[in-house]
């Protein structure tokens, strides 16, 4: 049916993959949808949609506290995803996997519960390229707990400035380094292993915001030397409403709970309550049961495709995009990091990113424009907004060509 016949050099059969995403057959303003906004949220394959629908159709009840068949089977399915996630991250133990709504909640949980153990005089160190999700919670902690918030600068290319980073660790006051594993604006993949080594050498723990990175390559929290790691289901071809915090067991054990309620307690009296074991201590109330099961389906689906194929495909797309976009008159690529994932930001002389986005949309092309929840980074870049195209498993080289061609016409129209 499709007129796209080129097959990327990677092993991925992209057309076969696309057929598993019903939405990719939709039209927008009478044009075929060209979806280049996966970094904001990825589309969902049938496997995920059906696993959720089938749970609700055939095997659903509230979990943990039920003694009946539906409840036991649903509990098994839910807890089974904890094993899948532990495996996905190569976590030492399933009990170190805490389910949250999204990456934002995972980071807030750490800021609240690990943050409660920090004292004035200690510092949290973030970077200049953080998403608001890995910035505002630390700011709120700073204002609440009287700790210091330090910001590691980036280079003009968009890499973490490692010398400055080391200098900021030097006085030994930093208790926690919280840094993105991949920038949602610049595409930068940060040298997580080195960041962790330097942090540990300075007596600091390290949290990586893996919201963008887990989608593009295999993640191994042990090899990275991470202490905390977070990601969010909806960017990993999974459902909304589900995210993950991984943290080392001893940390989770020492941290006070975040929210109180059912399922997170051991015993309750009006005077005093005691907490359940990890990870349940951090999962109050009825969790996002169906979404967790959907996340499991997403992880299994991605696992079947394999990160070797995914990474190869996305590297090819990104290289192609950098080349084609560079040819567009007046276009300026924002960020030239050493290692990058499938995200490219750009601006265009005389055309505001919002106008680009709207005009692209009129042609069926979905990109994002704005500050990408990274206002301080925009300020560092001297910009108020960028346009951003981002790629996923289902992205075609031809779609990038359509983007580049349309940008040329938009530029013509404006200048």
């Amino acid at each position: 049916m499709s007129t796209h016949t080129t097959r990327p050099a990677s092993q991925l059969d992209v057309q076969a993959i696309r057929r598993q995403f019903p939405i990719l057959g939709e039209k927008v303003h009478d044009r075929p949808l060209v979806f280049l906004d996966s970094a904001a949220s990825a589309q969902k394959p049938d496997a995920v949609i059906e696993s959720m629908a089938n749970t609700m159709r055939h095997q659903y009840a509230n979990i943990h506290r039920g003694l009946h068949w539906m409840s036991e089977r649903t509990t098994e399915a839910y807890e089974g995803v904890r094993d899948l996630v532990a495996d996905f991250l190569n976590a030492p133990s399933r009990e170190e996997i805490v389910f949250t709504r999204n990456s934002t909640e995972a980071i807030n949980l750490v800021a609240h519960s690990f943050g409660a153990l920090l004292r004035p005089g200690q510092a949290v160190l973030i970077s200049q390229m953080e998403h608001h999700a890995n910035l505002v919670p630390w700011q709120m902690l700073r204002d609440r707990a009287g700790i210091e918030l330090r910001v590691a600068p980036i280079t003009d290319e968009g890499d973490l400035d490692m010398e400055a980073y080391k200098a900021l660790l030097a006085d030994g006051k930093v208790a926690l380094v919280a840094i993105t594993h991949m920038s949602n604006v610049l595409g930068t993949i940060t040298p997580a292993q080195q960041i962790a080594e330097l942090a540990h050498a300075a007596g600091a723990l390290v949290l990586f915001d893996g919201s963008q990175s887990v989608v593009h390559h295999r993640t191994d929290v042990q090899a990275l030397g991470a202490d905390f790691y977070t990601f969010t289901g909806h960017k990993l071809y999974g459902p909304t409403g589900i995210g993950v915090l991984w943290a080392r067991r001893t940390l989770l054990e020492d941290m006070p709970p975040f929210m109180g309620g059912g399922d997170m307690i051991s015993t309750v009296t009006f005077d005093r309550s005691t907490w359940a074991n990890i990870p349940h201590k951090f999962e109050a109330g009825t969790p996002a049961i169906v979404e967790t099961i959907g996340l499991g389906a997403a992880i299994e689906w991605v696992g079947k495709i394999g990160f070797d194929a995914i990474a190869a495909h996305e590297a090819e797309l990104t290289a192609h995009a950098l080349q084609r976009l560079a040819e567009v008159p007046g276009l300026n690529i924002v960020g030239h990091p050493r290692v990058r994932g499938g995200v490219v930001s750009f601006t265009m002389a005389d055309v505001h990113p919002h106008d680009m986005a709207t005009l692209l949309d009129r042609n069926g092309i979905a990109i994002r424009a704005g500050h990408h929840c990274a206002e301080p980074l925009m300020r560092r870049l001297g910009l108020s907004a960028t346009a951003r195209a981002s790629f996923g498993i289902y992205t075609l080289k031809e779609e990038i060509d359509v983007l580049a061609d349309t940008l040329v016409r938009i530029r013509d129209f404006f200048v």
Partner: protein
Amino acid sequence: MKTATAERDALYDRLIVERARTPQYAGRLDRPDVQGDGRNPLCGDKTHLDIVLDGHHIQAIRHQTRGCAICAAAADLMAEQVQGGTVAQALGMSDRFMAMLVGTSPLAVADDQPAPLGALEVFAPLRSHKARIRCAELPWIALKEAFSHVDG
């Protein structure tokens, strides 16, 4: 090719693109009687207005706008439409403009008072791009602020 895109985008009328590129009312005034500011933190757009009044009349208006084409053109066309009129007329036009954008009035032609929006009607297609409505509204928000202490 040019036309292909342009045709698809009634929204980006040539007038909008031209006024964004070559505004007629950009700049500052020496001794403004009132001033107004609009800022959309979500996208970083800003506009500043200087206005000289002569009684109830808007004698001169200039804007300094940093933003997208929609916002820049909206500021410039607003200035063109309100200069020379009264404050009350400007505020009435503001209401009709907002109503047009959210689609509560059929192209701003009310029954009893057929005051047209003139060139401002090029913004009508924004109705189907809700996220961009704020861009066109911003100058009018600044105008309201400027007049918030002036009797109509």
